[in-house]
């Protein structure tokens, strides 16, 4: 009998204790944030959408080669000696047009491996994470700033220049090495343009800036 009343008493008391807890929580500020209106600040090194600053891109293709999922497509076009493409913000001379720099962000795995090799630090991870689209093709970002007309002009100029060079070479038969390199770079523009890249990236002192981030990515 005593246990019966004790049970009832404990039942009543514990219900009241529980009610006190829920009452307190009624006035506790909610942890929810109103997302589109209020956004949490992302951590400093959050990796989200990729951005490429084309003013600094030298078309070295290193980011594309580093990409584990092949989401970066770069095409380059040699410039003729009479054109000055300017310097990047780190002082590297730009020698290549970049008519195509596409990132398929749908494929991107946000590993940031493309960010570390960039000699001019022009490709980087931003804190933008709201970029959903209705069409998957809209997720292919075209970063190149060149218009089709400009690309055609550059191509025409390059072929004219190549022709001129070849004629010069033919007129003055001297080195056997030069004619071999020239036609391969000349004709299609796209696959040929890949070849002259290694010599270009070397003067940009890329290997020197490369090592520091490497331990970061492996650790």
């Amino acid at each position, binding site marked *: 009998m005593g246990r019966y009343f004790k049970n009832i008493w404990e039942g009543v008391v514990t219900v009241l204790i*529980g*009610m006190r807890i*829920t009452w307190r*929580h*009624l006035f506790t500020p*909610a*942890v*929810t944030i*109103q997302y589109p209106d209020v956004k949490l600040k992302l951590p400093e090194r959050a990796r989200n959408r990729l951005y490429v600053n084309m003013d600094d891109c030298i078309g070295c293709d290193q980011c594309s080669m580093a990409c584990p999922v092949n989401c970066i497509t770069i095409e380059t076009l040699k410039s003729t000696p009479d054109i000055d493409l300017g310097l990047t913000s780190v002082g590297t001379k730009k020698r290549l047009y970049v008519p195509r720099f596409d990132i398929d962000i749908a494929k991107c795995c946000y590993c940031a491996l493309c960010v570390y090799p960039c000699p001019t630090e022009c490709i980087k991870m931003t804190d933008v994470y709201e970029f959903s689209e209705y069409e998957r093709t809209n997720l292919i970002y075209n970063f190149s700033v060149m218009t089709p007309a400009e690309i055609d002009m550059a191509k025409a100029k390059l072929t004219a220049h190549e022709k001129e060079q070849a004629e010069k070479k033919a007129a003055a038969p001297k080195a056997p090495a030069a004619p071999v390199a020239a036609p391969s770079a000349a004709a299609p523009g796209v696959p040929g343009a890949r070849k002259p890249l290694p010599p270009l990236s070397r003067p940009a002192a890329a290997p020197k800036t490369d090592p520091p981030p490497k331990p970061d990515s492996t650790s």
Partner: protein
Amino acid sequence: MKDYLISILENEIIVYTLMAALPLVWIIPFALFAVWWERKISAHMQDRLGPMRTGGWHGWAQTIADILKLIQKEDIIPTAADRKLFTLAPYIVFVGSFAAYAAIPFSAAYIGSEINIGLFYIIAISSLVVAGILMAGWASNNKWSLFGALRSAAQIVSYEIPVVLSLLAVVMVVGSFDLQEINRAQTGPIWNWFLFQKFPFLFLAGIIYFVASLAEVNRTPFDIPEAESELVGGYHTEYGGMKFALLFLAEYANMFAVSAIATTIFLGGWNSPFGDFLSGPWWGFFWFVSKGMGFIFVQMWLRWTLPRLRVDQLMYVGWKVLIPFSFAIIIGVGAWVMIAG
């Protein structure tokens, strides 16, 4: 109010229709508000925000949007269901809970029907709800629904007894089943309310009534007929669209009905807590509704405090705790009334 309306409209049929429609005019906005309120309270008790968008300020139009959606929905009746019963059940449930409003004294001036067996009528007519629930569960032809309905029947059979016994204690004091009479017996300052009379008997009776009424309306911790985590939705698993809306409306109407009875019997009904101050027909309505809402708030509060009872625990609480205690209260109050008047 009825006589006044008859004197200006001079047509009894219109007046009676008006008087009968008034509770409905009350139930629907109340249910819309209470659903929103419950969602907000639930959310804030769990440190969330609840609906915040619809309508602008704290999602006030959320339930209006919900009901509009429910109205537009296709009316689905499962092939294996018993068509007639399935269609009929939500109406029975709603009629049962709505009919109880006929004898609820909203104010000194307004009561649907001032019958001298008001309390008896309400208890009798609200049992119709169980029939409807049982019907819904059976007609759905679904294990979960049937389980829910059976549990509901078992629960209401057990808890009707403490409800009636605890109310009887007050009836013995007043000597009348007339709810307006019971209200008038509590006129005066706050200690005239029956909750504080014949202490501690009627106080305990009030608590017993409240606990048992939670079981009557299938609210947590006695929500085993619905038991969304084990029975999907209990008796309304198979219902959708407007039928579901009706069941839901009936549930909220029932919540207010039991709160209204608790208010009338134990908390002085439409009486102002300050005696004559702030009393009158309109203030009476205000006090009545705010007391009822207070009870509803406690119902919601308990929902987020207590876990659901097991069936055997439910039976234990009903038969071994509430019923013996209410008998003791009946005896105590009876002796008190007999000796001291």
